[in-house]
């Protein structure tokens, strides 16, 4: 174990994989965005810069480039920058990568990772703040992973890179500078395996990506009020570890879902539906969802702040279901 930033752990996974897989290429240079961690991409560029292609501003073609190459047998990590930009490539992601294996009767495989940064990022306004996870999860044939910690990003990225199923790997730029313990050497975190971030008996908070940290902060605050919250991080949205989530709800009898996306047809909506379908009789209170208010993301800082499903909103939602 070594203490590292999330950004370093992500690059470690790419460097390790590039070292062992010759048929592997990276499309996109600014893998760590343009923030304080951008320079941490250097170890990758030093060792495997020849594997990195710097494409034009051309997301549809970048997706096609990666998907076609993956079909031809080269594993691909394709970086899209802000998740909003994947909307320029959504046809390729959904209609080419997502359907190819099934539509060809299992003949074609598409080993590609679509990497992007979702969410509110300060000043992103209405076109650079998208959280497309539930939109993508609504379509078949695509795995969808959302890591939260430095250790997880390394192990989950390796799993995605080795998978023959196209994987949406949705990061959050605000996580890049966070630190944590990261196992040394290559390891994999299996798909569909949720992590219990904090154990508790009174209420289950299911959160994804950056919202996990908000949920943990909320749980700390709630503990001071005598409320014992359990925080569940699904880590992969597709496939979803329903067993761990439902087991937690059976134990606590209360569910609050938290995410950065919009509430309509959200990941939280899906989990709430699962709870209603499968553990209805275990519920002691109505389910609550904490998500973005249904407005385009505004630029002005206090307005953008108001879009965030942060700790305060989570605490309020938990108290409402505990009442």
């Amino acid at each position: 174990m070594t203490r590292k930033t999330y950004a370093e752990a992500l690059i470690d996974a790419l460097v390790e994989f590039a070292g062992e897989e010759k048929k592997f290429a990276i499309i996109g240079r600014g893998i760590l965005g343009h923030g304080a961690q951008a320079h941490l991409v250097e170890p990758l560029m030093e060792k495997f810069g020849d594997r990195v292609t710097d494409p034009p501003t051309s997301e549809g073609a970048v997706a096609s480039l990666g998907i076609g190459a993956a079909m031809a047998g080269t594993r691909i990590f394709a970086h899209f920058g802000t998740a909003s930009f994947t909307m320029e490539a959504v046809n390729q992601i959904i209609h080419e990568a997502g359907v190819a294996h099934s539509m060809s009767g299992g003949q074609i495989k598409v080993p590609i990772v679509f990497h992007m940064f979702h969410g509110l990022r300060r000043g992103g306004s209405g076109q650079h703040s998208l959280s497309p996870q539930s939109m993508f999860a609504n379509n078949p044939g695509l795995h969808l992973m959302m890591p939260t910690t430095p250790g997880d990003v390394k192990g989950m990225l390796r799993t995605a890179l080795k998978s023959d199923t196209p994987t949406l790997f949705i990061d959050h730029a605000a996580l890049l500078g966070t630190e944590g313990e990261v196992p040394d050497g290559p390891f994999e975190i299996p798909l569909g395996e949720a992590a219990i971030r904090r154990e508790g008996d009174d209420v289950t908070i299911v959160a994804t990506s950056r919202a996990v940290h908000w949920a943990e902060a909320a749980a700390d605050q709630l503990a001071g009020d005598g409320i014992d919250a359990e925080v569940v991080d699904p880590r992969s949205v597709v496939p979803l570890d329903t067993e761990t989530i439902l087991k937690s709800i059976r134990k606590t009898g209360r569910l609050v879902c938290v995410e950065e996306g919009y509430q309509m047809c959200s990941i939280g909506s899906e989990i709430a539906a699962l709870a209603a379908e499968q553990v209805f009789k275990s519920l002691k209170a109505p389910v609550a969802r904490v998500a973005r208010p249904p407005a385009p993301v505004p630029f002005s800082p206090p307005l953008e702040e108001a879009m965030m499903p942060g700790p305060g909103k989570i605490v309020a939602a938990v108290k409402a279901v505990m009442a």
Partner: protein
Amino acid sequence: MTAPPAPGDRAALFQCMVLMRRFEEEVLRVARDHPYVGRQHLHIGHEATGAGVVSALSPDDLFHTNHRNHGYLIARGADPGRALAEIMGRKDGLNGGRGGPWHLCDRSAGFQSTSAMVGGSVGLAVGAGFGLKTQGSKAISVTHFGDGTLDEGICYEALNLASLLALPVLFLCENNAKEGQRPSSMLAAKVLHDVPDALQIRSLVVDGPDADAVAAPAAYEDDHIRDGSGPVFLQADLERWPGSHQTKPEFPTGVTDLTLAWEEDRIQGPHAEWVRDHDGLRAYAKKLVADGTLSEDQVLEIDRDVLAGIEEARAFAEASPYPDPSGLLDNVFA
């Protein structure tokens, strides 16, 4: 399974063209005889272009077809019975009934995903060229598409990327834009190859119905693509088959009669001009008989053999059951 015609074997090239034509005619019959939900996009009239390119390329080359794909699949050796079964949505179809007529796929014959999103295959072909290049392969990536595909934005992005990265891609544009009718493309550029030219992609124009011209590797500068010099855009000019734009099965030019290759006086009907002047299959039969490559009897014998094979293919496809819905979720994830 019939092997694709070897380079320079003109009789085999002709046989391949006959197979492509007779297969599509059978697709029309299937659509007429069965309650049928799909729509057909037939390759009739494009055989000289399709078979010509297939015969000239290497078996390792990767093909990316679009919704007008059937001819390419069977020309490269996909089993006509399994292809027809797929078009009918049957269990033994090439894709197990998951693709249908727009998405025939046979990886063993060098086909990647067959996209019916207009322009989709152009992007994927550029990707395959990238994959082959990163693997140090000598194979090239090929995509065919109609002129109407150039209306789509992805084409411009993909052509740009192929040029910038000097990828080994052959862009085969089957240009059947017809003046005086609703054009299949609506481009401000009046000369199609102005588009690749502007992006520094080498472009060539070939007479699409002339099988020998298309089959000559010089037609698309095979060496240029294979030695890493970058992509080539081959514009094959074709006169659109009168049945090309249709939603209901019909034979506007009639079932093909190869004796018209040498009995031209009998060419009649509202589409006589197309049959006489623009049907590359009839033209090639006429040419091969005229230059002594095949006799009239040999032409008709080839046709009979092909038709016998098509009959077997139809019997196979019709005997194949529909897939069991219990397998609905098979292969969603790899």
